[in-house]
């Protein structure tokens, strides 16, 4: 049985700003600068799954199923949404790092940690964060 990885790319446009609730406005401004101002990004999400190549279908995963799961779980939730208003970011700043961890936590129960290999979130073409469950 041969194992392989499949990656499908998704996108969502979302708004956010950086703010630590326990800090004063001045402290937030000093640390985060312009990132304290609400703004948005066209995020790109790469979801990689791994597994045995099914000898009957020739597939690791039905990409249609992956598309449906990621759309229902992540894209519908975050596309054209204010990330700071989402309960998942109530106690954490919606940095690219934390978005990657949150996306992993949303997808892992749906796809299984044995199948989910990594998630990679691109804030723009110059910055991405990857998490592989380790």
């Amino acid at each position, binding site marked *: 049985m041969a194992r392989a990885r499949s990656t499908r790319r998704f996108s969502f446009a979302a708004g956010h700003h950086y703010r630590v609730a326990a800090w004063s406005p001045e402290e937030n401004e000093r640390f985060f600068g312009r990132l304290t101002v609400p703004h948005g990004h066209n995020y790109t999400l790469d979801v990689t799954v791994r597994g045995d190549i099914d000898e009957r279908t020739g597939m690791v995963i039905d990409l249609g199923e992956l598309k449906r799961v990621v759309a229902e779980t992540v894209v519908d939730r975050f596309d054209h949404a204010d990330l700071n208003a989402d309960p998942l970011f109530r106690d954490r*700043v*919606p940095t690219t790092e934390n978005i990657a*961890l949150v996306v992993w936590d949303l997808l892992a129960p749906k796809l299984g940690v044995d199948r989910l290999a990594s998630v990679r979130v691109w804030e723009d073409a*110059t910055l991405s*964060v990857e*998490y592989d469950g*380790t």
Partner: protein
Amino acid sequence: MAREVTLTRVYHFSAAHELANPALPPEANAALYGACHRPHGHNYYLEVTVAGMPDPVTGMAVDLGALDAQVERSLLAQVDHHKLEEAPALAGVITTGEGLARAFWGVLEPRLARGSLRRVTVVETAKNRFEYRGQND
């Protein structure tokens, strides 16, 4: 629970180069490297991947400003709109994509938080990517 993520930052520089092994005569270099032996240039992309734990308060695993400043100061300033063979950091390096990735790793690794550098990728053209992950890869 602290979980480690890897963050990749993409930088850009344009530079001239020509592939040649100084130990070889010109005819041998021309034969070995073909068109790449002639002086030419590329719009390069440099991808720097570092690992870190997102800070529980700020959510940041990496000080991006510090990373950008370090890459700019120690690498980009030497190579952007320069001839690669004349960059001090590339002395003695045959400037293939692989050679650049390994040399850039050598410059950045000691200047970043200990053990944080995971991967240096040099994108020479849309068709050519070269990765270096350190000696133990």
